[in-house]
């Protein structure tokens, strides 16, 4: 993959892949600040922020500054994965990069499996997604888990077993109501059920 390194108007280095810029050519830091400002929900509360797309790395830096969360960057391109890590020096105690090329690969990645056992939020970097929509959407769906298969994977990782088969219908539209109805939740530890019921009250 041809990756070019350009200099933005403010002097920062930005990357271009197959003619597509992965950050602003004028001020990539300001662009990253604005990007995070539009995605504030939960970012100061979750333990891990999973970022889809390494871009030119500025959005990763911005999240490091704005939160205390662990940051897990998933990048399908091995070349970009390496170039971005050469371009910046990230704090390795907080930022981890993974080269993931499929949903199956995602499910097998130890750091991902660990992250989804606790609170996390998924942030998709739009410039990185551009031109690679299929794989990005596949990875995002697996993590967002609004369908039976993905949610079952996450439930199982927490030792809670399978979701009820009845939830296979209406893929991608699972809600907190569905969760309350599942046999799994009904049979899981009763305290867990109190949490689900509490959240259901919020969306009534």
């Amino acid at each position, binding site marked *: 993959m041809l990756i070019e390194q350009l200099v933005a108007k403010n002097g920062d280095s930005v990357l271009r892949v197959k003619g597509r810029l992965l950050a602003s050519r004028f001020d990539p830091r300001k662009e990253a600040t604005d990007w995070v400002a539009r995605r504030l929900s*939960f970012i100061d509360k979750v333990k891990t922020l999973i970022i889809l797309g390494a871009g030119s790395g500025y959005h990763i830096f911005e999240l490091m500054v704005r939160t205390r969360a662990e940051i897990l960057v998933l990048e399908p391109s091995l070349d970009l994965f390496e170039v971005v890590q050469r371009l910046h020096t990230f704090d390795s105690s907080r930022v981890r990069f993974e080269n993931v090329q499929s949903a199956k690969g995602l499910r097998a990645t130890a750091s991902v499996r660990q992250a989804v056992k606790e*609170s996390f939020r998924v942030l998709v970097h739009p410039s990185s997604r551009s031109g690679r929509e299929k794989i990005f959407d596949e990875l995002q769906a697996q993590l*967002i888990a609004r369908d039976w298969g993905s949610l079952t994977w996450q439930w199982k990782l927490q030792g809670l077993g399978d979701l009820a088969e009845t939830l296979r219908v209406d893929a991608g539209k699972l*809600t907190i109501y569905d969760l309350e109805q599942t046999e799994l939740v009904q049979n899981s530890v009763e305290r867990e059920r*109190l949490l689900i019921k509490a959240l259901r009250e919020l969306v009534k």
Partner: protein
Amino acid sequence: MKILVVSLLRLGDFIQTVPVINGLARKPGVELDVLVHKPTLQLAPLVRNVRKWWSLDRDELQEGLGRADIPMMTSIHVLRETLDEVSATEYDLVINLTHTRFSGYLLGYIRAKEKLGMHVDEFNRVRFNSPWFRYLDRHAKNPVPDVLNYSDIFLQACGLEHADWEMRPTAQGMSELAALSLPDCGALIVGQTLTSDAKKNWSSQSWTQLFHELYVHDKNRHFVLLGAPSEQERLTDQIERLRLMGVPARLGIMSLDGALALLNRADLLITGDTSIKHLANASRARVVELSLGSSDFRRTGVFKSESLILASRAECAPCAHSSQCSQDTHLCGENLSPQLVAEACENFLKSDWSALTMAAQHGKFKAMRTRRLHSGMWLASDLSDQKSVVQGLLNRSTWKLLFNQEHRRPLAAIGSESVLIKEDLRELFPTSFGRFAGLDFIEQEIEEVRISSEHQLARSPIGIRPDSKTVSITEIREKQVDLGEKLELGEIKKKLIRSLKSQSMENL
């Protein structure tokens, strides 16, 4: 002893719990933490004695469940992790002052040695662990002839006798007050003219007219219209209108710190049903509350003694929180004319309760005088209805005796309680005429309730014949408990009435 107080509603609801927080925190050996909805954190600098403020962002949790780009599990994980951290503190006692299903489930999840207030246990049973909270559950929303103020319920449930509203003024508040550059002379009248609900608002024209009337009566007065940043535009319009009428009014867009500082400087606050009304309990300002729309002064009225509450006599008031106004026009607001309210404010500032009583007896509005009774409970006594005041006094003493199980003691506290009632009656009605008005009638009502309750209990072998085709044992048991309680309340009340009557005879 580590105590956690849970209050997850809005700012005003939290302020109503301040006496409980102060009362508990001042007990020897108590370390008190609170769990609140995130916006309530802005009150943290003002509330003393709280060791740790936990918070939940209800709106964010809700957003996480609804938005397609946020993982299904995020809200669940975040809520669980927060509550696990709370549980790790190993509280001796958790008290729920929220009384919603949401909070009930959360309390069920939090681990603690003891729980007070609504919580759902792991077998999905709703528990209260206090007759006061059970009372709150049954009477929180239902239309009932008389009902206790929420702050009273909380205080009694926590075994607290005194309502300590103290809140700490802050440097930020004082600096916001200084920025208003208020003149040193002349009375300061503060108006909180906007509420969170259009139904509770008095019209802008009425407010303008009221301030004009108050200014014409005394041109040394100055006025501040208090509000939040989101209300700035509307309040600026009101200020402009007042300026055109020659009324010196300032705009007070302030934080709660600033509002408290302003209220400590003010002579009078005129307000709708707002959090500022509750904040005023901690200040030196006297309060006139306009109770309109869904505002129910009996449950959430200004707690400070010797305050004045004005309400409409419109039959639809108070209306339900969630529904729109059922009338073609805002009847309850229109029944309160600015001239009448201005006159009431003038009499209130002179503490002329006789004039206020006369006006209420002939006007289209109700006027209530708030009072911390000798029994320790709060009452908004209707100036135009002595019988309801007597009934209110009796009810409060009766509930207290029943829920605190004082009536079961070998030497029941009936006599002492009736002396307290008599003392309140003497102070509320300085002329003896009508002081014991309606005792016979109330006694007759109790007898009617007794006959009806006993009849209902005897109607079927299991107690009550439910109206629906399916029989709910839980519902039947609840009704049996209700009826049993009614009978017990009636018995206590009858004893109080007899004691009062014998005291009135002694007076003769």
